[in-house]
């Protein structure tokens, strides 16, 4: 697919999207006059611009192909790993998920300097803990580690011992 076709298709997609949103706006309640007027105006502008884009693209002679990804393998690995990382935050918590994510993705992207990677990961997590958790009080997700509070180190150690004893 060349750039000309991409432009024509994106223009057509814009017109369709504007139409779809317009049909939603028509279902707004009668009292929401301002809410619908503004969006209708934006949709009209969007539709006109997209139609102009289609016309201009059909006239153009740009047959170059767009470069979707520079390195498809690295791109796919990054997107997939990031999705898994965000999904896992809820279950294994921020610190464990971030450590695994940093180590695995850096390795997949070609980093072969273990010391640099370990130090950088530790430094980043320490920065996040210091600024976000200690200073700003952001409750980062801890997942299964929720019970092991950093504020109660002896209690957490006792819980860890109990968990190990169960194993």
């Amino acid at each position, binding site marked *: 697919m060349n*750039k000309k076709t*991409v*432009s024509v298709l*994106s223009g057509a997609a*814009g017109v369709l999207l504007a139409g779809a*949103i317009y049909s*939603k706006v028509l279902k*707004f*309640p009668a*009292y*929401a*006059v*301002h*809410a619908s007027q*503004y*969006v209708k105006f*934006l*949709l009209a*502008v*969007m539709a006109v*611009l*997209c139609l*102009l*884009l289609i016309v*201009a693209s059909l006239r153009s002679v740009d047959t170059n192909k*767009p*470069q*979707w*990804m*520079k*390195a498809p393998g*690295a*791109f796919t690995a*990054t*997107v997939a790993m*990031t*999705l898994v*990382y*965000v999904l896992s*935050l*809820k279950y294994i918590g921020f610190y464990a998920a*971030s450590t695994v*994510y*940093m180590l695995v*993705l*850096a390795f997949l*992207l*070609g*980093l072969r300097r273990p010391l640099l990677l370990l130090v*950088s990961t530790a430094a*980043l997590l320490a920065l*996040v803990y210091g*600024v*976000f958790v200690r*200073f*700003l009080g*952001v*409750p*980062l*997700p801890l997942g299964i580690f929720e019970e092991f509070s950093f504020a109660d180190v002896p209690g957490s150690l006792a819980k860890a011992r109990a968990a190990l004893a169960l194993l």
Partner: protein
Amino acid sequence: MEMIIKAALSLFAPAPLLAIVAGTMGGVIIGAIPGLTATMAVALLIPVTFGMNPVVGLALMGGVYSGGMFGGAISSILLSTPGTPAAAATALDGYPMTRKGKGGVAITIATVASFWGGIISTLALLLVAPVLAKFSLRFGPPENFLLAVMGLTSIVTLTSGNLLKGLISGVIGLLIASIGMDPMDAYPRFAGSVPELFDGVKDIPALIGLFSVSQLLDLTGEASIVQELTADVSTLKDNKMPKGLMPTIARGGLIGTIVGMLPGAGATISAFISYNTAKSIDKEPETFGRGNPKGVAAAESANNGCVGGSLVPMLTLGIPGNSVAACLMGGLTINNLIPGPELFTKYGTITYGFILSLFLANIVFLFLGIYLAPFFARISTAPNSLLVPAIAVLSVVGSFAMRNMMFDVWTMLAFGVGGYFLHRMGFDLGAVVLGLILGHITEEGFGGALAISNGSPAIFFTRPLCIALWVLIILLLLPAFRKKKKMA
């Protein structure tokens, strides 16, 4: 004058000086971290400063405000990840400079421009605050709408490729900004059954996604951010300030001061207006967006110019120019300092002490920025295989920290991946961000003005300030269209 001297003397004690240095350094760090804004930091400091001497407490908060506004430029320039929304325009030329191995120079320019922007606006605050405050009160909804339109005209100059795609990108941003409760009828548009969307799409996760995540996906195909590193790696440490930037910086400082005074406008819009103006009047506009130092200078002088500007109506009339000024007003009122004429008479020592502390905060970050620029710049030589996961982790934390919601993290990811493909299709992510950020101001101004005029659009063309703004908009647009026509 006697009061100003008294105030200056009160600052030269260990506690206020320490507060200014610590506040500014903290502000720079917070500003540089995506997702953390000066508003958040100042709001958190209010209870901390409660028991302090008011001069020390206010100096601490002022330092955070000034430092935070500058700090946003560091990550914006080095990683194309604006630390704060106000630094979004800085990335347009700052990041291309880093790609050329000139990250150190870009940070130096941002530091010097931020310094002068801050000094100009603080001078305005010190000398002509009451007069300026009266002027800012003449801005009503129609003028605010036209101010937002002026910001949106930047799309025309921002877009380096297909102008139609640039304009469509801006409309996409405006449409995304329309999600959530509308300002007039409070109807939750397109929110469906997702309560997190009732309040609209939050700027910070969207901004981090569009600028940071889409950029890191781009970096996966390269070894290092710096693309044109010469054999001599020491060029990275080069942080000499290029000549000929002072007119751009002075203009940006003035734009920032004036726009900063207008309630609801703020640093982001002023940075884009200043960038747009610099590009429109430059002899080589085509070099903007490709690493032109004037682009960095224009954006940074304007966003720091907002610091003093936003405090003008706050200190004189009790109307904060932006959210940070609103937090600072909280800091004043808990010390029983009620904005108004008394602040400059009865409590003059404290008020002038606070204003003078902003000068010192500017000097602190000037030294920090210039001396640390070469060290900061080295980040851009780190391998992308390390930077990509590190930026992703910071992006996740920054998005989450806004409301402590995983929803915002997913929003950030959606904008990141969507933005990446939009960019590959030739659309302009800067224009999307501009539409997104200015969408609320545009709609509020538009709706508010029509409500005043009973639905008559004549209100946008009859008020003297509106006419002046139309003239400015046309003046900004004309050169851009002429050049685009020539290029065609």
